[in-house]
């Protein structure tokens, strides 16, 4: 819907000359004021992380001491090791990594294939299928989750990893759309040239499109990887054996079932930070791709 404006816009950003501020405060506040604003906002947004960090480095009782120590008296870095001894923490981390990898790989493979079909082929029923694909994006998760839960129950898949992995090998509308959009930016002449050289469709996909598609694969991998890592409701309803939980669900045990009634807040904070860290690292590695993906999926939506 915003499509038409985009091509013209894309060129603009590179060579923008002198700027006239578009922000009202730009004229009122001097540049230093804007910097101050940015720094303040940054501090406010970072405060929860700081709080989690100092809490995670305190001793159990110190966490609940008033007045608050704004830095732990002695930083208890061993808390980050102690976390691994709580319940099945090591299992949870492993499970999360495993589920994230398997589900993400499935999404990439199945969605890129479908995206290729929608981007490059002409076949009967294409418009209908593509519209249907986009329409499924409108459905709230719960509408699908409930009957799917029944399906998994019928298949005897509850309490297994199958519902958390298998469906992702059958495509996801959002990523199909993302891949299609990207493939359509690759000149079709490349396909035609390869076809003249005798390449079939699978070969064109494998040796022409794939090598040029690293950005979109990286984008999709980061977005879906983060989604999977954070996934909570699905594993919550599917699994009931604590040793099978992913980290997102396992964290509850620091609160719900502390074992010895001693406060576990410091460990919960350490665990929360440890759950957040991989996401932030992944983001740093692929920051450029990620931002591009967000913009691509957002503006062309």
């Amino acid at each position: 819907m915003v499509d038409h404006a985009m091509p013209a816009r894309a060129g603009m950003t590179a060579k923008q000359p002198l700027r006239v501020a578009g922000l009202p405060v730009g004229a009122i506040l001097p540049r230093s004021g804007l910097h101050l604003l940015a720094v303040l906002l940054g501090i406010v947004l970072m405060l929860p992380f700081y709080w989690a960090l100092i809490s995670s480095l305190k001793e159990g009782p110190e966490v609940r001491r008033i007045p608050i120590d704004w830095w732990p008296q002695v930083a208890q870095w061993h808390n980050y090791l102690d976390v691994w001894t709580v319940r099945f923490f090591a299992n949870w981390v492993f499970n999360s990594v495993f589920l994230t990898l398997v589900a993400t790989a499935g999404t990439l493979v199945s969605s890129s294939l479908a995206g290729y079909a929608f981007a490059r082929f002409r076949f009967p029923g294409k418009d209908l299928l593509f519209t249907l694909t986009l329409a499924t994006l409108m459905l709230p998760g719960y509408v699908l989750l409930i009957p799917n839960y029944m399906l998994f129950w019928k298949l005897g898949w509850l309490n297994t990893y199958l519902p958390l992995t298998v469906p992702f090998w059958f495509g996801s509308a959002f990523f199909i759309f993302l891949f299609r959009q990207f493939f359509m930016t690759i000149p079709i002449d490349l396909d035609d040239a390869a076809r003249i050289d005798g390449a079939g469709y699978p070969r064109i996909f494998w040796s022409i499109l794939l090598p040029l598609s690293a950005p979109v694969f990286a984008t999709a991998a980061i977005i879906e990887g983060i989604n999977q890592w954070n996934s909570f409701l699905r594993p919550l309803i599917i699994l009931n054996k604590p040793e099978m939980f992913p980290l997102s669900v396992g964290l509850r045990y620091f609160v719900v079932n502390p074992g010895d009634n001693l406060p576990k807040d410091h460990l919960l904070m350490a665990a929360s930070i440890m759950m957040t860290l991989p996401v932030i690292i992944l983001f740093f590695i692929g920051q450029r791709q990620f931002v591009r993906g967000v913009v691509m999926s957002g503006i062309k939506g």
Partner: protein
Amino acid sequence: MVTRAAAVPRAMVGTQGSLRRDEVFWAYAFLTPWLIGLAVFIVGPILFSLGMSTFNYTLGREAEATFIGLGNWVRAFTKDELFWPSLGRTFLYTAVVVPCTVFGALLTAMLLNERLRGTTFYRTVFFMPHLTPIVAAAYIWLWLLSPQYGAINEGIWQLGVALTGTGFKGPGWFSSTEWALPGLMLIALWGAIGGNMMVIFLAGLQGIPQELYEVAAIDGANSWSRFRHVTLPMISPTLFFNSILACVAAFQTFESAFIATKGGPAYATWLYGLHIYRNTFELFDMGYGATLAWILFIVLSVFTYIQFRTSRAWVFYAGEGR
């Protein structure tokens, strides 16, 4: 609209019948996983779920399942005492969270669009809350907002000491009925103000032709009218897009409420998502749960439709040459 673009002129295909058949075969070959997924995990379940909503059915008790027609709908609208309050609460939550996050994200994007030195650094910092898994964020905030030991209430107390000599008592947050919902709103605001929406806004802002501002400046427009008459109309499609997505997301809020409050205290944060969860996955009242999910879908559709209708009045598409 999007499908049109697919009709790229093809150099060779189409003139040769055999190649064409080959093309159709491979298209469906590549689509096979998705077609199976669409049928098994999406279309099939949707139809099944529609059917389910006409039954009184508890998981595992096939024998006792009874067809009750619109009975589940009647039950939701007239008998379920938690239904209307949870729906109203979700509206309230959405009505506060969406404007705050959307305009907060727009302002943040405008700040970053000022090209301050260190913008990349700021952008990364602003984006980090969005990257925090909602589960971890909920636990961190639960602890941050702890009435007794949390940093926020301690800060409020110290502020009181500094200003008046006696400390201010902070709100009870997740343990009080008045402040639990605002607590959830804070979590949402924190996560969204520098998140995806901000990134999308930033791209939109960077796409506004600089000439427009220059022309406006020559015409003597002050910074407010430049914002009002250039930035706002040019960014309105993005604003619209972000608002719709934000509404859909806010309406389905589940994790933060489930973790921070479990809907309490005294149902103060019993959002619609929790209501669905409770009926479906704790009471296993599947027919009723499916109905509640469909009601959510209808509410969201109506909501989105209204937004599309009203958008004609305020969303400006530069490409349409109006």
